[in-house]
């Protein structure tokens, strides 16, 4: 039994069936890449795993730490050790990044406003932030800003990874964290993720393009087409996609590598 098991997961959005039976076993210490053309259901998978209310589970289960997390609220999943870096991080006006990060970290540590021993100390919080900001090549100036408000695409994605670094999940799902990033930003993000890799972390990295996999080397690669895995294997699967794209499975010829003009 793997640390995190997705079993025959089926899900729909607004009555439309999207995930048609996804099965995947992730162990801590492993990095799994899920690749697929646009609209194949990658974000549906990530949102369903995290419990977004807009996605309906039609069947299957997701077992983590001995329980089916599909019955849990998103915050319960997070406190259990799951993390989702969103493809499109949400703007929340009026709340500073610092406040957000501190509140999330306190929540993760089980601080409910009463037991002060569980509360992160200002000193610890500062040093934690400082270290992670450096790795991501971000400066303090973004901390007093409102959550994702006016952030560039790259800043948003880096902020997601910063949250991951602070919260230290055991299962992290990164939904197209590489999309829209220039090569430097991809490297910073990859450095940060690689630093976190280790026996305590399992990663599910969702991507459209093979490029990010040069920086974050996956142990397994799965190809999602029309809500189902059509191919799973080792890193060689990514190489194959690089040559042929998704055309073997999808009608449209979707490249799995960036076109030259898309490389910033």
């Amino acid at each position, binding site marked *: 039994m793997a640390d995190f098991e997705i079993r025959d997961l089926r899900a729909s959005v607004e009555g439309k069936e999207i995930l048609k039976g996804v099965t995947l076993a992730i162990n801590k210490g492993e990095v799994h890449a899920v690749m697929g053309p646009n609209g194949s259901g990658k974000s549906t998978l990530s949102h369903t795993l*995290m*419990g*977004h*209310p*807009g996605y309906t589970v039609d069947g299957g289960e997701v077992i983590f730490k001995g329980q089916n997390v599909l019955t849990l*609220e*998103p*915050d319960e*999943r*997070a*406190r259990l050790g799951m*993390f*989702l870096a*969103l493809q499109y*991080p*949400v703007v*929340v*006006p*009026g*709340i*500073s990044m*610092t*406040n*957000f990060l*501190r*509140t*999330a970290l*306190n*929540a*993760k540590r089980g601080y409910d*406003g*009463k037991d002060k021993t569980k509360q992160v100390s200002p000193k610890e919080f500062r040093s934690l932030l400082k270290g992670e900001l450096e790795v991501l090549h971000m400066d303090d100036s973004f901390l*007093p800003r*409102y*959550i994702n408000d006016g952030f560039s695409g790259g800043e948003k994605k880096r902020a997601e990874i910063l*949250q991951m670094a602070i*919260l230290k999940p055991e299962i992290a799902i990164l939904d197209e964290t590489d999309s829209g990033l220039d090569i430097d930003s991809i490297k910073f993000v990859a450095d940060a993720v690689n630093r976190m890799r280790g026996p305590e972390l399992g990663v599910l990295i969702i991507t459209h393009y093979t490029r990010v996999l040069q920086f974050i080397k996956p142990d397994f690669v799965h190809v999602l087409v029309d809500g189902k895995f059509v191919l799973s294997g080792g890193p060689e699967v990514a190489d194959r996609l690089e040559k042929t794209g998704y055309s073997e499975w999808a009608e449209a010829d979707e490249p799995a590598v960036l076109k030259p003009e898309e490389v910033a």
Partner: protein
Amino acid sequence: MATVPKVDVGTDYKEKYGFFVPEDYVFKAKRGLNPDIVNEISWMKKEPEWMTKMRLRSLEIFRKKPMPTWGADLSVIDFENIFYYLKASNKQSTSWEDLPPDIKKTYDRLGVPEAERKFLAGVSAQYESEVVYHSLQKELTAKGVIFTDTDSALRDHPDLFKEYFGTVIPPADNKFSALNTAVWSGGSFIYVPKGVRVEIPLQAYFRINAENMGQFERTLIICDEGSFVHYIEGCTAPIYTTDSLHSAVVEIIVKKDARCRYTTIQNWSTNVFNLVTKRAMAYADATMEWVDGNLGSQITMKYPSVYLMEPGAKGDVLSVAFAGKGQHQDAGGKMIHVAPNTTSTITSKSISKAGGRTSYRVHIKMYPDAKNSKSFVKCDALLLDDESRSDTYPYNDVDAENVTLGHEATVSKVSDEQLFYLMSRGITRSEAETMIVNGFIEPFTKELPLEYAVELNRLIQLEMEGSVG
């Protein structure tokens, strides 16, 4: 803006705000309202004859004026079942040590001395119907600033008082200004001389602590030319079993080049009727800012206004209203542009929850002389559930040419995307909702001194948890 630290509130609210102190009054008026009671109030206060007459005249006006029916439902107020004057102690206190122990305990729990240590220039704390504690730092006195309770001002500064009292809001302005003028007691009086800037906010803590007790405080602020003052009033009330009426009048005169900011955070218990008339006159290039936060009370009706009397005058209203179960916050703002090149902004944020109702009334009036004037109004309403309600009633009355008028209104709900995002980081639903609401009113909160910002965020948290009222 500075990040507001998260404070643990769940446990100490009752302790800090919801306590009772045994009533120990020197004088307790009878319930009800008639010329005898008004005479008695004036006599008790040893007032000059003109004030007694003005009170009696106002009582007549109050009697004649019909109850306003255009706003919240006020028909349940029983004017005969209210105490119109209560006095907590016989003499004015001049220092903290001299305060009666009961009252001291009240303010100790409210943290007045601590607040004073931190950034107060003076404290004027209203206990029951009369200000009993008053202090003013020496440097202010040296600068000629007067900061006292309104009763003392009538006694000690009779000429200044008579020159301005009732000039901004005459008794006949509305039914409740008439009532206030008839039975007023306490409140703050501030005079800032020419060119004097009071850099530290002056503040008063208000409490009401007797059943069926009315509070009719009367505040008068005069900012002479080129001066500046920031006055803060904040109140939290203990929980009552029967209805209570609060009907204040605030008059402000802001002369040429002066600036006045008046900040209020009110959190009356949810049986209080809070019917307040607030108005300022702003003269050439003067600025008047109302920062007004309304939580609590059963019904609040309050529309701070600025009369922009001379060219270059500027008026701002920034307000927040929170209406929970059984509450109706009927708030708004009025800007009366009388002179050319005057500007006004009204920014309102309202939150309705559990069937609570917020209304926002905006009245922009531009007289023919108000050429080249500008006004911008923005109302954002946040509804936390389907039973709650929010309405905006804009009313523009423009007779001037070449003016700019902007109006923006939004009604939204706490977004699923935002909730999901915060929850996906391990934050509980209720905490995430509180964060989103506090984020929504942040443009207001950031205008408050830190301590008040923290308190407001705490109150919102309590409201969100449903542990208030």
